């Protein structure tokens, strides 16, 4: 079984990169970070590069800072699901061959670059099975399912040809009104 100990090496690190600002994946993340990973010895962890890391990304716009393949990216403050940026899409575009849900839930996230709060629409991408990459679950301002427009447990693949969920985007709708 010695080869079993040599497996995967960096899925831990990969999972760690996906944590929210609170250093937590949520229960979905807890289980899904586990799936597909394998035990490792400390020696293996020390001796290899981060081969399983998702390559770093950036938007190309300094006013839109951060890495959209990480859970910490500012737009993801209310997201729950696989990040489309890791699935062949981007932070605001679905991967090839999927269909963007026309209805969705809404969050308000703070852009650290310009200090503004933006209204973010978390459109799901639908029609292929779970992407399985970069699960991110942040529940800021998440409310129960009886307040659906503020709930991220709902499968928003509604009004699409297929209800099968693939990944989630974070699309800017505009600047949010100031707090009352």
């Amino acid at each position, binding site marked *: 079984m010695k080869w079993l100990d040599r497996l995967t090496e960096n899925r831990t690190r990969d999972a760690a990169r996906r944590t929210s600002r609170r250093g937590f994946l949520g*229960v979905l993340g807890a289980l899904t970070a586990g799936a597909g990973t394998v035990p490792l010895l400390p020696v293996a962890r020390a001796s290899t590069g981060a081969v399983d890391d998702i390559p770093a990304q950036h938007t190309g716009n300094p006013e839109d800072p951060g890495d959209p393949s990480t859970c910490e990216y500012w737009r993801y403050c209310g997201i729950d699901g696989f990040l489309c940026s890791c699935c062949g899409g981007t932070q605001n575009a679905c991967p090839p061959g999927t269909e963007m849900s026309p209805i969705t839930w809404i969050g308000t996230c703070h852009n650290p670059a310009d200090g503004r709060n933006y209204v973010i629409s978390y459109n799901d991408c639908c029609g292929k099975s779970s992407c399985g990459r970069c699960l991110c679950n942040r529940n800021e301002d998440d409310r*129960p399912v*009886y*307040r659906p427009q503020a709930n991220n447990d709902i499968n928003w693949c509604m009004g699409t040809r297929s209800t099968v*969920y693939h990944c989630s985007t974070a699309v800017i709708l505009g600047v949010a009104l100031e707090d009352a």
Partner: protein
Amino acid sequence: MQKFRRIPQHAALALLLVWPGAAGAELQSEPIPNVVTLSVPYPQTYAMVHDFAFGSLIDSSFSLVDIETRRFKGMLSAGQFATLNHSVARGEFYVGETIHSRGVRGERGDFVAVYDFANLALQADIELPPRRANTVVNLGNSAVTADDRFLLVFNQNPGTSVTVIDLDSRAVASEIPAPGCALVYPDEAGGFVMLCGDGRLLAVTLDEAGTEAGRWSSEPFNDIDNDPLSEKAAKVGGAWHFVSYGGEVQPIDVSGDTPRILGRWWLTSAEERAANWRPAGWHWTAGHDSGRLWVGMTPDGYEGSHKDPAPEAWLFDTGSGERLARFELRVPGLSFAATRGEEPKLLAVNIAGQLDIYDGSTGEWLRAVGSLGETPFMVHAIQ
């Protein structure tokens, strides 16, 4: 290279190679086919663990396990965003599921698949209006009425309604509109209540045919903006116990003709709240008819922590609001359920995907069951 002992040209030929029943202690040929049947009624020690299967949502499942022997008894396969209900009286499981006719594509179909306890075999495949709620595991998405007569399926597409299924005829009896309201919590008279986005409670009564006989709506009582009641509730005696994100318990008595929204009480002391103790986990709560309520708790509460794992479970007496015990969990818990009887066990699906079994009174860890699928999310005590 090893010489082969025999290479039959076809499976049937292998029979020719069988020694023709000479006397002696040899093992006898065994029957084909051969399928295990379960003893019914079930013992009090069965539980169903729901694998949400986040990485392969169209292929979820329910694992039947014996929490005493740790033996795996069987499985029900399910489609995406499935629900599980059961009736001990009928000896049946009801799996709600959404399935496309070609896997991830093709026509959407919503079903309630009926399985018998003895064989875990499909008894009926009830087709539903194709709008059942597709959400991450939520007990409130479906319920059997208190009289075991109807199965209620919450719809959200995104308009909301409830499909009522007659469990005698195994057919859809009615669809009840419920705009702005969500989820189904059975009352004790065969009807149900729902939580609404405007902070009210909606109560619906059913007639013998499973159609709406009447409805009643409360005043707003749920401050959703500031401290919403989690929909992950537990029934204790005649009352549903909802717990707010902040840790306040809202009992709703459903034993009478009209629901009564009872007085609230806190899980936490002011000091504990100041220290950020809050309820946490997935299905936070478990109840027992003796009046006991268990709630998963985290000391690291913040806005958004309501889906964090719970390192502790706290036990309360719902009559007095008194905390009876604090259990430090072996592994942080996600979802909880309690068994019935004099000595209830607390069942906890933990963040390692195992089912932990604790003494419900002392919190002593008794054992765990593992290998329960990809992302097990919920446990149901089957009794």
